[in-house]
């Protein structure tokens, strides 16, 4: 028997959903027009006023928002509520210049946690469960989001955060964790550690909710087999709230988008044209319930397909496929957003040529990043100690910029192909 956190919403008819969406969209556009001069200007430039938006069918008239807008408007330019009404910020993983800060009112936090609660219930969670949250806590949305959702469901919540595998396993066995929430790569790592230590019999896990990075069906089966659980995907982005924008149900054939909060569109990333349902294209979201940080027509840069095929779980919300790629050059490495331009910045700062190659791979279910850089006369010395000292400084600077470790490989001068037109800066060997 399928269970829902908010059955009347999750199984609502399409007609009912459109009524909600139309009403909320109209209200939201007015709210943004009244409170966000940055977006109002964009609307004025496009010759649109709130009066032109009567419902979802008018959505295409609104201007888009991109990450560049967020950067330009940083930090308060897209804020739609007085700071006095905001209670929280979350932010994307550490990137200079590309940092996104999202604001939440108490109501925003509440709705976000509802979305996460829906995901937990869809994964079989009840108030009898012990929900082990090993996403990072802090600015990253993963920990706080699932933590709040778990509270709402009434699970005993273990705010483990990431890392310290010994402690993770001790709590998991001693307190009998039944639901694990973390990145899929960390789940795979925990699964391996459990097998290495022979703890299989002491693990009571039944489900896992894994997101924030791409993972394959093969990886899903591997985690499911090793942990004896069912593994569910979850999707979200800080800009719209965090995890819980969409989540998988028992059918595991895509993630139901919480359409009562986020209206999805699929567009052609080059022309911005809205594509017919079922087309592959860039996912764009309009937040229709967020108060503090209501983004309209926000480019996620994730490429995917939407499907309204009837789902056996009974949920009526549209399903999105796993993201199949990106329409920009952003990479997600160990759950962290990485742009090649960040690496370029660090190299130039550290006195290396901006001619480099990033090699991304997945070894034992964990992402690896190698940056190949050419040696220069200025950085060379007859002393190995001096070279390695500079190399270490570069590794630290990359870590500070990206938030993850990158191995540096110094290569011979001119061994990296000079660009003729578009340079190949990224070699992604991951099979996802």
């Amino acid at each position, binding site marked *: 028997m399928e269970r829902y956190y908010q059955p009347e919403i999750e199984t609502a008819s399409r007609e009912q959903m459109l009524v909600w969406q139309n009403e909320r969209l109209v209200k939201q556009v007015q709210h943004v027009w009244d409170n966000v001069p940055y977006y109002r200007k964009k609307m004025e430039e496009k010759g649109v006023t709130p009066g032109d938006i009567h419902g979802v069918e008018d959505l295409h008239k609104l201007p888009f928002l991109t990450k560049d807008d967020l950067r330009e408007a940083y930090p308060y330019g897209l804020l739609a509520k007085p700071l006095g009404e905001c209670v929280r910020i979350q932010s994307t993983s550490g990137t200079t210049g590309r940092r996104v800060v999202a604001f939440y009112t108490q109501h925003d936090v509440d709705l976000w946690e509802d979305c996460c609660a829906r995901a937990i219930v869809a994964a079989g969670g009840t108030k009898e469960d012990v929900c082990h949250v090993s996403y990072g806590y802090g600015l990253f949305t993963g920990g706080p989001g699932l933590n709040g959702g778990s509270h709402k469901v009434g699970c005993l919540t273990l705010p483990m955060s990431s890392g310290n595998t010994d402690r993770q396993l001790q709590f998991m066995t001693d307190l009998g964790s039944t639901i694990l929430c973390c990145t899929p790569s960390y789940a795979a790592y925990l699964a391996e550690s459990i097998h290495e230590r022979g703890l299989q019999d002491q693990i009571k896990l039944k489900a896992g909710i894994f997101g924030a990075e791409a993972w394959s069906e093969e990886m899903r089966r591997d985690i499911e087999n090793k942990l004896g659980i069912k593994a569910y995907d979850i999707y979200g982005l800080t800009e719209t709230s965090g995890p819980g924008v969409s989540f998988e149900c028992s059918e595991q054939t895509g993630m139901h988008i919480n359409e009562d909060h986020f209206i999805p569109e699929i567009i052609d990333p080059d022309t911005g044209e809205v594509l017919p349902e079922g087309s592959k294209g860039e996912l764009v979201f309009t937040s229709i319930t967020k108060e503090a940080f209501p983004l309209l027509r926000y480019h996620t840069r994730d490429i995917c397909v939407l499907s309204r095929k009837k789902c056996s779980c009974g949920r009526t919300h549209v399903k999105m496929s796993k993201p199949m790629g990106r329409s920009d050059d952003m990479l997600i490495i160990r759950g962290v957003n990485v742009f090649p331009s960040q690496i370029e910045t660090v190299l130039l700062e550290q006195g290396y040529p901006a001619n480099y190659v990033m090699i991304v791979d997945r070894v034992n279910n964990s992402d690896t990043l190698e940056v190949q850089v050419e040696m220069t006369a200025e950085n060379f010395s*007859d*002393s*190995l100690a001096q*070279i390695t000292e500079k190399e270490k400084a570069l590794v630290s600077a990359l870590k500070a910029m990206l938030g993850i470790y990158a191995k540096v490989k110094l290569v011979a*001068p001119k*061994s990296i192909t000079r660009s003729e037109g578009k340079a190949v800066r990224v070699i992604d060997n991951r099979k996802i």
Partner: protein
Amino acid sequence: MIIQQISIFLENRAGQLSEITDILAQSNIDLRAIHIAEATDYGVVRLIVSRPQEAANLLWDKGYILSTRPVVAAPVPDRPGGLAKVLHILADAGIDINYMYSMFGSRDEMAYMIFRVKDVKHLCAVLEANGLNGATPEELGIQ
């Protein structure tokens, strides 16, 4: 006893070193000493050659990253305890050795070690004060 050492950046892959020795061979430049310091992905090869300036120019033109610096070719009595004696002299004088390696061949019962130190002139003075008078570069086959 002060001579020029050439250091070259080498990626760790088969054939890299032979490319360098080929270049030197083609110009009839003689190798007097070679030493390699290795890191995981690359190495630094240090050379003492018969015509250092010419070799450096040749390698630079071929696109190698290199640097040259003076090092000391110190005479070491070619018998048991010979190096120990020299190292004691350095230790007593408080001289730090960054690295050292040996040259090919010996002459008048003297072998030659290359010392990379901060102050090459000071090292020469200390060695001479202890009766270790080095050979000239010409005597070592270096122009």
